[in-house]
């Protein structure tokens, strides 16, 4: 059995499934949960997290700022000696709430989604007015000195706007950095995949553009998933394959995701889930199930933790692949939405499949990119 900490370091709480927008590639699939738990239930749970020495709460949704009682929830987090981050579309953030957040001194960052250099590529899948809402929220937070992380989700309608987006965010708004990913086969995006998800040609374009921009802006553009991350990772894998290098540490097995060792999540109806993208796996309910017991011993979590011992060579999907010694199988949540099985390599981030579909790996512009 894999060794596990006594409690998770972080808990992602989707305090609501409601949102003022209906983005076509929203990664959350909690919209069918009819009611949010009342604040009293959440406060009881936050107190339990405090007793279990959890350090951070990731506040998500839905749109967290749609809750009128969000300040009460944050006050409870602070009272129970934790810090927090928030993921938001930005449009409901006012000067008043930004001032409150600043006053807590415990907010590590607020992530705002900005997917265009102007309203059209942002609003096309998020709804009219959402771009200006996001910028307004961003400015409220910056006025208060709150750390803001801008996330650009790349889709079919903004993939040709990346140069302008970088210029807008880094030169015009003078943000220190921003991160990128791509519309992924989660939540609402599953219904609109053909319309919003990148084609193979789009992915190649995005990878080349982002590598060039990352070089031009001295690595102020980051990614843990999506085209930029894939460009870097796949380049390393291809270099290793060509030189017959020794396998990467932990590679050759389903070792990509370490989330189940340090964090857990809770849906807006109080159901405990392994992560905010695995809403289908119900581990228990807050204030009913023993939180620490669930974290340490739930059989499903043990199964996910033990996936690291599953060799990729066991899968028919990976048969004959030369990249196995350099591959970690990628995101288990995405593997589930695409194959119906978490303990399976994710087809979406499979280099072999990408190349067979006509994709190509861009050359890195800067040696630093490879690290």
């Amino acid at each position: 059995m894999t060794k596990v900490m006594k409690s998770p370091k972080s808990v992602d709480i989707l305090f609501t499934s409601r949102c003022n927008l209906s983005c076509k590639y929203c990664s959350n699939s909690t919209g069918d949960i009819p009611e949010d738990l009342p604040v009293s239930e959440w406060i009881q749970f936050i107190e339990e997290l405090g007793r279990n020495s959890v350090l951070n709460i990731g506040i998500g949704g839905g749109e967290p700022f749609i809750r009128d009682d969000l300040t009460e929830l944050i006050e409870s987090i602070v009272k129970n000696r934790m810090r927090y981050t928030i993921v938001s579309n930005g449009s409901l953030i006012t000067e008043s709430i930004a001032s409150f957040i600043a006053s807590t001194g415990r907010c590590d960052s607020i992530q705002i989604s900005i997917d265009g250099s102007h309203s059209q590529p942002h609003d096309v899948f998020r709804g009219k007015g959402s771009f200006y809402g996001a910028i307004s929220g961003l400015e409220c937070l910056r006025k208060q000195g709150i750390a803001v992380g801008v996330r650009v989700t790349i889709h079919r309608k903004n993939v040709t706007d990346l140069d302008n987006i970088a210029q807008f965010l880094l030169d015009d708004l003078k943000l220190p950095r921003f991160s990128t990913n791509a519309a992924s086969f989660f939540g609402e995006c599953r219904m609109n995949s053909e319309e919003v998800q990148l084609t193979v040609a789009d992915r190649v374009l995005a990878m080349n553009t982002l590598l060039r921009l990352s070089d031009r802006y001295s690595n102020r553009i980051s990614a843990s998933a999506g085209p930029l991350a894939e460009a870097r990772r796949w380049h390393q894998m291809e270099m290793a394959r060509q030189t017959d290098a020794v396998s990467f540490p932990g590679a050759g097995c389903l070792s990509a995701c370490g989330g189940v060792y340090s964090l857990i999540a809770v849906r807006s109806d109080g159901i405990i889930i392994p992560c905010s993208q695995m809403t289908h796996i119900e581990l228990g309910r807050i204030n009913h199930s023993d939180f620490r017991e669930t974290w340490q011993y739930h059989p499903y979590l043990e199964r996910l933790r033990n996936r690291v011992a599953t060799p990729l060579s066991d899968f028919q999907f990976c048969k004959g692949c030369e990249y196995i010694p350099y591959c970690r199988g990628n995101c288990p949540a995405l593997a589930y939405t695409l194959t119906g099985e978490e303990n399976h390599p994710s087809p979406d981030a499979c280099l072999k499949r990408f190349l067979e579909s006509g994709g190509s790996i861009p050359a890195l512009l800067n040696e630093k990119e490879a690290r």
Partner: protein
Amino acid sequence: MKSTSIVQVNESYVFREEFDDWALLFNPDSSETFGMNQISSFIYKHLDGANTIESIVNKLAVECSEVPPDVETVVTEFIQNLIDKGLAEVKE
């Protein structure tokens, strides 16, 4: 500080046990974090406002094998270090 002194931890810090009785001390206001090994975790957990330094040393001697002869000095220095960093305070 005397062997009869009673020290209490600063409860604004989070004491978080991780693997094999190793622990983190975390200040949620500053994110400042200290790592603690098994022995320092043992001592920290006994700084509860009731134990004297002498009683902590005695309990440590029971729990551990091969306790060095200068254990009281070492424990006192460690506790003084905690106090200097604002992680604990003398109660009596």
